[in-house]
């Protein structure tokens, strides 16, 4: 039986003045799926997310949420969606509990749900603190709590952990992991942290310059790209690009001039690493750094665009 998508983005375009922010994007998200929109800053992720949230209208194309368009269905759709914006500000002099109670009243929810959420986001000790006195991580957890108040069918998070320290980030991830395990909420999040996409989402959509570059599961994306492992290395003579030496073994080397490092994608590290070391020896090249590891989304993005995710 084929399921209906909860979010259907149909060939949408959006531009601002001379900038084409979203340029023909098309995808479907099904119930219970967790999807990451991964891309560098300025890729068009937030614009795409705001169109899904109904905040912006596409210039062209359609967006359906549970088979309904935003126009004329705003109140109904707001009831089944929970959102967390990229920047979250609250009323400074309200407490955590008062802020949640205010938003709970919009969904016709009572005190019990507020208490549940406070427990879920781990802010029980801060219940009576003014939100202005919360740390960045605590604010973001509160924002997430607000998004979860109505037990949404669809949760849309725009860069939920940007600017947070690693601990605060892990706390947010842990809440979302718990949600994934205990509910059938569909999750869409934008991020430029590949670890976040890897940790939380089974499906990843890589976006750059308003277009989808690639999408699929993490394994699928990595395997498709000349192997799922990499050798990352740096040479003693950093000025000498390895392309200039004889390369008979046919290694496909991507040279990162900014970091003076080369990256080679491969499938069978056991056989290919000795070949690579042999090749260096034959060319009288000395290693300054060598690392063999699993390929990351950052490597994948670099191989597709020549740029890194964080540039």
């Amino acid at each position, binding site marked *: 039986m084929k399921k209906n998508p909860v979010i259907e983005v149909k060939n949408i375009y959006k531009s601002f003045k001379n900038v084409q922010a979203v340029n023909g994007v098309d995808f479907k998200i099904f119930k219970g799926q967790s999807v990451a929109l991964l891309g560098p800053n300025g890729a068009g992720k937030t614009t795409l997310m705001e169109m899904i949230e109904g905040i912006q209208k596409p210039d062209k194309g359609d967006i359906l949420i549970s088979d309904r368009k935003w126009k004329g269905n705003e109140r109904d759709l707001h009831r089944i969606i929970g959102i967390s914006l990229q*920047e979250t*500000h609250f*009323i400074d*002099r309200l407490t955590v509990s*008062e802020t949640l109670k*205010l938003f709970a*009243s919009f*969904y016709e929810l009572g005190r019990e749900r507020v208490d549940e959420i406070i427990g879920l986001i781990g802010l029980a000790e801060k219940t009576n603190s003014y939100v202005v006195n919360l740390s960045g991580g605590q604010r973001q957890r509160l924002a997430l709590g607000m998004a979860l108040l109505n037990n949404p069918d669809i949760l849309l998070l725009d860069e939920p952990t940007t600017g947070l320290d690693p601990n605060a980030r892990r706390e947010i991830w842990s809440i979302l992991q718990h949600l994934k395990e205990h509910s059938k909420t569909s999750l869409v999040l934008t991020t430029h942290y590949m670890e976040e996409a890897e940790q939380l989402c089974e499906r990843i959509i890589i976006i750059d310059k308003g277009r989808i570059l690639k999408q699929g599961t993490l394994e699928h994306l990595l395997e498709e790209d000349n192997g799922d492992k990499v050798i990352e290395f740096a040479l003693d003579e950093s000025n000498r690009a390895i392309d200039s030496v004889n390369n008979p073994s046919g290694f496909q080397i991507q040279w990162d001039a900014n970091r003076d490092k080369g990256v080679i994608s491969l499938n069978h590290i056991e056989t290919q690493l000795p070949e690579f070391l042999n090749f260096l020896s034959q060319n009288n090249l000395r290693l300054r750094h060598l690392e063999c590891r699993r390929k990351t989304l950052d490597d994948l993005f670099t191989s597709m665009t020549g740029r890194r995710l964080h540039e």
Partner: protein
Amino acid sequence: MNRLIQQKQLAQLISAHFKEIIRQPAVIFWGIIFPILMALGLGIAFTRQTDIVRHVAVIENHPTAMENANNALLLHAFLENHADKIEPSGDKPQQYKITLPNAKLGNTTFVFEKTTWRHAMVLLKRGNLGIIMDEKNGRIEYHFDPLNTDAHFSYLKLSKIFSQNSVPVEENLESVHPLTVHGTRYIDFLVPGLMAMGIMMSCMWGMSYGMIDKRSKKLLRRMVATPMKKSYFLISLMTVRIIMNLIESALLFLFAWLVFNITIQGSIAGLFAIFIAGNIAFGGIAIFISCRTANTEIGNGLVNAVVMPMMVLSGVFFSYHNFPDWSIPFIQKLPLTLLADGLRSIFIEGAGFADAMLPAAILLSIGIFFFSAGLRFFKWH
């Protein structure tokens, strides 16, 4: 049931906005204590019956005046004989003092300072004095701005002193009947003006700036991404403002009543009607001017553009009848003028409920018009 839920939503919004205001310590100062301090300062400055002191420049005899030795020293001789000498301090010139005692109106004291014509003109331009006395050919001459009523007052009193050519006596008390009816003092004029100004300022800065700030911080965007009823958000803001303004005005009145014995001579119901209508008018204007921008600096300019002209023109501190006649009908139609005049008519003229209906209806219409227009164009994102 649905109605009950919606009322809960409205109650939560009102509660949140109320807490947002009262938890800012500065609000208590600017909203409540500052208007009271203003009433106290201005009330004392312009209401309390104190001695009137006026400075007069007396031109020192120049050589040409010596031509007629008999008359040349008339003015100076009068001061020497009939005025009290004030001991000069430092390098200040010689000063004399004449006091006209008056138990009912307060004493009037003239301080005469001998100086040159050039220096006297400097003092006149600086506003340190309003009248200059000189003598020519045995006649005393008075120099003053004919448009300066205070100088006129000084001239009349001085000419009386010098025509009598003798020690001044107490003025004819029987012919003077000072007005002691409430409502004629400056504080009676000032307090309703301060209330009107408080309502305007509180609505314009509190609501407009608050909304623009919430928009710029994307809090509005976050709130409308829920099933919140948008009109409830605006109604809750206005409700909280009306309650705050009611508290502020009541405290201001209480203070003015205790300290200056100010009273409300007209209809309380009428006063309430104008008060609420004024709040709605300025609440509506506040929503209208803040309906689009997300930039607090633009918001600052917009609020000032509305507030400043009315502060100057609408007669909060002094009567707008000093403006040219052609401008008066225009000034009288400004919302702040309507509100201040309406409040004054009840406070000091004893206007009844029926008299309050017209200004209240106009203010209400202004509020509804701008509220509707603001809601129509309101940018939530």
